């Protein structure tokens, strides 16, 4: 049996056990930690094979007719996303305050989201991929409605709005996926849902370009709504700002990446010509600029850390779509790398914001200040998260962003700038904008002097674990991006000789 089934089962078992009254300390974080070890074990046993090789395959028949199998397996991309899932899960569970009322429900939901996301990332079947995502989505929406912050009327409104958006988005997505599968299935055969067979079919009998673009449009709207693509983004920020901290971490860090993961699975392999249709590419470019510039402005306007982080996470999705719009191997690898990095950095920032809110009672910029002098550890951790999210080299997000931008300009010998290049240039301005709001937040919260006498103290060492784990991942992936890239990118063919010395006349 594939170890991936165990990885899938563990969080479900934990959730069931927790709902039956298992002790929180024993059944939550340790189980999540075990899953991290399990995924690391899968990575090790896989070794350095080519990224497209699917390893650790397993299958369980679920329905005889129509044939529906739960088949799992990981290639490099799946494994990277699975790693993201388990790492963020463990940190999300770690930082739930067990003494708080409703902590148990939060733990259960965290495990359910983890299971759903993990399932979506490791299953090899398009329908199951969709189903797993729904499994994770429903508890997310429920917990926002039940345990979100603020007045109950407000959080119900927010949860309802998110439900409507995500529900409609999921339906469109399902329609798009069905259309895709029906179009690719050969005449007279049973519906093909298996990822690998679909990829093979698409390669052997590619769909006409226009149809690819039409299906691509439906999928972009469907997946895009889940990833908060402009203009379907207005659900996201209030939902994150209202959700319990662990849920915000898991949804923005992991579950949202499902949409990007789905597009990475479907677009380049099955609909390779979709974005070469100028109208679709242009529409996507405008939409992603909406994410980066429009939401960037909205972000600059925020005067509250929660809201700012929530909007920034919407904004940064634009870069992932930029990579998709550019197409090409470098850009797509960049998308995967950035999705991973962004997941880690936003989870860290949401975790810190939650901790600060719990201690201070507010996250409004004008009421806070000078927090850095009393809590140096939180200050440093916040710097890590914030500088990573604004794309500082040396922290994880930079490498992915660089690859996406380079991918946009990866048309060797082109002598004029086209739509994608101009979009990339406009998107580069977003890097300046994120520095504006990022540093404003840093300045308003941690630097200067406290206006209202509110102070923050560093958490005890045991509680820093999850935060330090995320921060160190940012540093490692940022300074050694070749490590995560080994999972998702083929080895370069012509390596320049290491230590090559070109002696010249001196």
């Amino acid at each position, binding site marked *: 049996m594939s170890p991936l089934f165990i990885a899938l089962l563990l969080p479900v078992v934990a959730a069931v056990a927790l709902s039956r009254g298992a002790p929180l300390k024993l059944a939550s974080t340790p189980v999540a930690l075990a899953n991290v070890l399990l995924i690391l074990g899968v990575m090790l046993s896989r070794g350095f094979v080519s990224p497209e090789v699917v390893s650790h395959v397993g299958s369980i028949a679920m329905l005889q007719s129509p044939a529906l199998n739960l088949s799992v397996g990981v290639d490099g991309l799946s494994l990277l996303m699975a790693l993201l899932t388990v790492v963020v899960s463990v940190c999300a569970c770690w930082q739930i305050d067990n003494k708080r009322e409703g902590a148990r429900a939060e733990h259960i939901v965290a495990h359910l989201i983890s299971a759903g996301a993990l399932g979506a990332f490791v299953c090899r079947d398009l329908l199951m991929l969709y189903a797993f995502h729904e499994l994770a989505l429903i508890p997310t929406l429920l917990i926002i409605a039940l345990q979100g912050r603020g007045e109950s009327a407000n959080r119900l409104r927010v949860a309802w709005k998110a439900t*409507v*958006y995500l529900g409609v988005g999921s339906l469109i997505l399902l329609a798009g996926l069905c259309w895709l599968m*029906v*179009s690719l299935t050969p*005449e007279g055969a049973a519906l093909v849902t298996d990822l690998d067979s679909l990829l093979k079919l698409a390669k052997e009998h590619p769909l006409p370009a226009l149809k690819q673009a039409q299906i691509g449009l439906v999928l972009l709207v469907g997946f895009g709504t889940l990833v908060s693509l*402009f*203009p*379907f*983004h*207005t659900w996201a920020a209030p939902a994150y700002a209202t959700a319990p901290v662990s849920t915000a971490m898991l949804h923005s860090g992991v579950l949202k990446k499902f949409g990007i993961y789905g597009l990475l699975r479907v677009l380049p392999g099955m609909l390779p010509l979709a974005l070469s249709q100028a109208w679709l590419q242009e529409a996507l470019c405008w939409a992603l600029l909406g994410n980066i510039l*429009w939401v960037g402005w*909205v972000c*600059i*306007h*925020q005067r509250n850390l929660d809201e700012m982080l929530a909007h920034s996470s919407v904004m940064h999705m634009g870069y992932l779509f930029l990579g998709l719009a550019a197409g090409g*191997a*470098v850009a797509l*690898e960049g998308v995967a790398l950035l999705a991973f990095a962004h997941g880690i950095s936003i989870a860290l920032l949401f975790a810190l914001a939650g901790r600060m809110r719990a201690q201070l009672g507010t996250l409004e910029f004008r009421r806070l200040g000078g927090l*850095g*002098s009393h809590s140096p550890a939180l200050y440093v951790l916040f710097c890590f998260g914030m500088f990573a999210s604004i794309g*500082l*080299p*040396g922290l994880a997000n*930079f*490498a992915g962003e660089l*690859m996406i*931008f*380079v*991918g*946009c*300009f*990866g048309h*060797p*010998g*082109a*002598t*004029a700038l086209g739509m994608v*290049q101009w979009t990339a240039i406009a998107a*580069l301005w977003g*890097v*300046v904008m994120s*520095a*504006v709001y990022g*540093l404003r937040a840093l*300045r308003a919260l941690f630097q*200067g*002097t406290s206006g209202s006498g509110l102070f923050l103290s560093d958490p005890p060492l045991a509680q820093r674990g999850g935060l330090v784990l995320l921060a160190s991942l940012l540093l490692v992936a940022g300074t*050694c991006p*070749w490590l995560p890239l080994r999972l998702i990118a*083929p080895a*370069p*063919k012509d390596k*320049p000789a*290491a*230590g*090559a*010395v*070109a002696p*010249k006349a*001196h």
Partner: protein
Amino acid sequence: MPADSPSPSSLPSLLLLLPLFSALSILLFKRLLKGASVAISVGSSAVCFVLALLMLGSSDSVTLIAPFIQVPGLTAALEALVDSQSRGMIFIVQSIGLLVHLFSLGYMKDDEARERFFGALSLFMFSMNGIVLAANLFMAFIFWELVGLSSFLLIGHWFEKPSAAEAAKKAFLTNRIGDFGFMIGILCLFMANHGDVSFSGLKESLASGPLHETARLHSGLMFLAAMGVFMGAVGKSAQFPLHVWLPDAMEGPTPVSALIHAATMVAAGVYMLVRCSFVIEASPSAALWIAWTGGITALMAALIAVRQDDIKRVLAYSTLSQLGYMVMAVGLVASQAGAQHDSASPGHPAMFHLYTHAFFKAMLFLGSGAVIYACHHEQNIWKMGGLRRHMPVTFATFALGTLALAGLPLTSGFFSKEAILGVAYEVKGPWLAPLFWIAVLTATLTAFYMTRMFCVAFLGKSRSEHASHATEVPAVMALPLVVLALLTLLSPWDWAARLLSAMKPDHAAPHLTVLSASLLALGVGVGGGWRLYRNAESDPLAGRPWSRWLENKFYFDELYQGIVHLVQDGMAWLISGLDRGLIDGLVARLPASIAGRFGQRLRALTGGQLQAYGFFLGLGLIWLIYELVMVLPLNPR
């Protein structure tokens, strides 16, 4: 080289790893290490200085340090390029770096967050070495941004102080705007040169390759690329219009100002321009823009410096002005590249001025630090005076720095300024000719404001309690001043310049006009300053209408603040309103209300009338049968 000494290729790796190790260990184990962190930082700097000396004798090489990103289609490796330019620059960075580390031992003795300061200094040394050694533009960009980060940390060292926190933020953001352009330039070059952005690859390609064609046929793209790279330098070297961060950066501790904001980081922009000079040569219009930007910055900053009263701000504006000089030289040399400049010869007037300026400006800054330290953190020159008697070592070194900056013959500043004036004089074309006179005017103003500051701070009577009780600084702070003074005296001579890879340009035939113009500028400037300020108790120029413009730095800060407030925050306010109202309305509420209306209408149909139900049922059936019989057989899929 003896067998047991490090091989040439391990030198660059060590130069990067040692400061990185120091910075990381201080970041992680600050609490455990306590005083040892300071020792680690200073120790790593000292070892790096020795490595820099070893490197002066090493041969040219390219060393792979880390693969960073290596996938098919993109290679962005960390590779160290050792050539005469990087050897000379590493020597500047490491020698001044070590002296500043030593000086800081005294200056930051009582600071509570001393460990953090030294950790950030190490991070800076790491990043700066990275820029200098970079063999390709990606690596340069990575360390370019890291230098921005370490500058942010050091300017904001006293982050509890609102002005310091604001200055740090301003520096980082202004640099980010420059980096935006830098990245565009890199990406354009990446595209035009088929994915190779190593300096050697770019150079070859421009001589006879894809870039050669691009430069010939698509001057627009080449212009964009050159201006992009230049924009990076505009940010880092604080050129007009992004110059506003540098004077504010003086909020940082003074040793930092000497190291980062006078000698090294701000010089990185000029360094990178010289590295990429072949790109600029390929676009004459970019060269024109660059020369003029430098000229305008030089003149504007010199004018502002005339009316500043803070000792560090005068020096900051003087740095701006001198950087403008260097940038102007880059543009001028590039624009006459075809005519007589031989790109194979290592000399470059901008690099030579960078090198001489680094030593005497670092000395001036450390001198001002000594003065500030002795006067109990008083920075206003009008509250000093008479320091000559109390601080003889500082006085002597400061005098030497002033003379070098003013361009007294036989001092280092004279030679390098002369080289730039020579290029400006020789350059042809109506668009570039006025720059010579701008340069001469700037030189006059430089001599004037330096004389002013020197007279007011060091001569005459003490004008405050602190100044009259000032005493000479301890040896650990005085020693760096003396060493820098020696370097200032020795640096311009041919043998020293060759030994230290100073990139001194070859001797051109001296022009009588240039020589007399620079002597005249010196005479007028020093004479005017001496006459006005020798015995002045307050500034005789204060109160004139034009002087208010200089005093307020041409109101750039106010202008930019207005732009940020009106455009950025205004737009942010407007758009976030639209986002909530319009987008949400169009995407969510409008469909919702349409669906609602539609439901209302439909409800009218379901009025309970059996006939109506029957009618709709029949209609539906007919449609279904039509589909099944007529449509489906035609479209099997």
